[in-house]
């Protein structure tokens, strides 16, 4: 009888913890959606320039010569390519902030981590842009070479975020955040 009671108590404690985790997740995802929307309030001109420049240089290594037309436009074989907000992954980074923010860590550590994530996402994004350019140059249609590759890239980032989120939830934050 007492063993059953203990078992039941532990299950109930776990279920209440699960409930609070689910609530926290819901809040995080709502914030993520808002963050993505906020990222589109700005044009991110400088980031577009950096992304296009890095993409241009990486493409050059692959033997693809893009010609710069403006800060966010390049031309290749008479076709113009424009770098918009999604091309910079800025929306992905914004959306990842609420999902990756660790409540058990200090603001400073979180900020440092998010800076590292930004750098990582920038490199990953430039890499996927160049991969799609190489595929396109190899003769694949644009939809397959660029858009499908983009979808796969978004999914890879999603997987990484989800895994981190799960790991974070396995180790709940300490009661008092470290400063």
């Amino acid at each position, binding site marked *: 009888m007492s063993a059953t009671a203990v078992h039941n108590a532990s299950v109930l404690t776990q279920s209440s913890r699960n409930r609070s985790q689910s609530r926290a997740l819901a809040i995080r995802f709502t914030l993520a959606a808002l963050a993505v*929307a906020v990222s589109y309030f700005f044009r991110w001109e400088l980031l577009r320039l950096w992304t296009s420049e890095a993409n241009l240089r990486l493409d050059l290594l692959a033997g693809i010569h893009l010609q710069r037309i403006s800060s966010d436009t390049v031309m290749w074989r008479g076709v*113009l*390519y424009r770098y918009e907000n999604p091309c910079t992954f800025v929306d992905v980074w914004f*959306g990842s902030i609420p999902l990756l923010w660790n409540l058990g860590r200090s603001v400073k550590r979180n900020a440092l981590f998010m800076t590292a994530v930004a750098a990582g996402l920038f490199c990953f994004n430039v890499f996927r842009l160049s991969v799609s350019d190489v595929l396109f140059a190899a003769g694949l249609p644009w939809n397959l070479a660029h858009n499908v590759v983009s979808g796969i890239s978004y999914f890879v980032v999603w997987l990484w975020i989800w895994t981190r989120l799960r790991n974070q939830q396995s180790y709940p934050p300490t009661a008092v955040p470290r400063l």
Partner: protein
Amino acid sequence: MIGANRLAPKKHVKEMIKMKRLLQVLAILVLASAWVVAQSSAGTGSNAGSSSGSGSMSGQSGTSNSTTPGAQGTNNGTSATPGQSTNGADSAGQTGSSTSGNTGTAGTSNGAGSSSNSSDMGGGSGNGANANGNNTSGNASGNSKGGGEIAFGTFLGLAALWEVTRRKKRAVSTL
């Protein structure tokens, strides 16, 4: 009594698992819809003064303030208000409007057309005439480096596949 006590938590756990799954689906949907909204707004956001890709425009140039991605044959390039030329020069007086859509014919525009479709936008095109909404008649056609619907579909498909695989694995492990 004991049996009832044992059953109650099990039911609760099942409910929690269901809720978690629901939450996962909801999370993907919320993110996806936010992304779609953001993507569609990205097109309109990049309109003003966005004829910067028109390096090859000669003489008369202007800015096209096009919106409405995907709408066929409507308003894909009301162009050439002289004062709005990003090239600044030689945009004297001659205004026109290109009203061609994806399938329509180009009007006689003196400005450079610039469509900002989220899927197949272009930076700008034209030689000072015949600016087309989807940039087929000018010197250059354009592509956006953004994702678009196909990227979104790919992402959703992969996410669904991933979820199904996870569920299968979980089902196998509980057996």
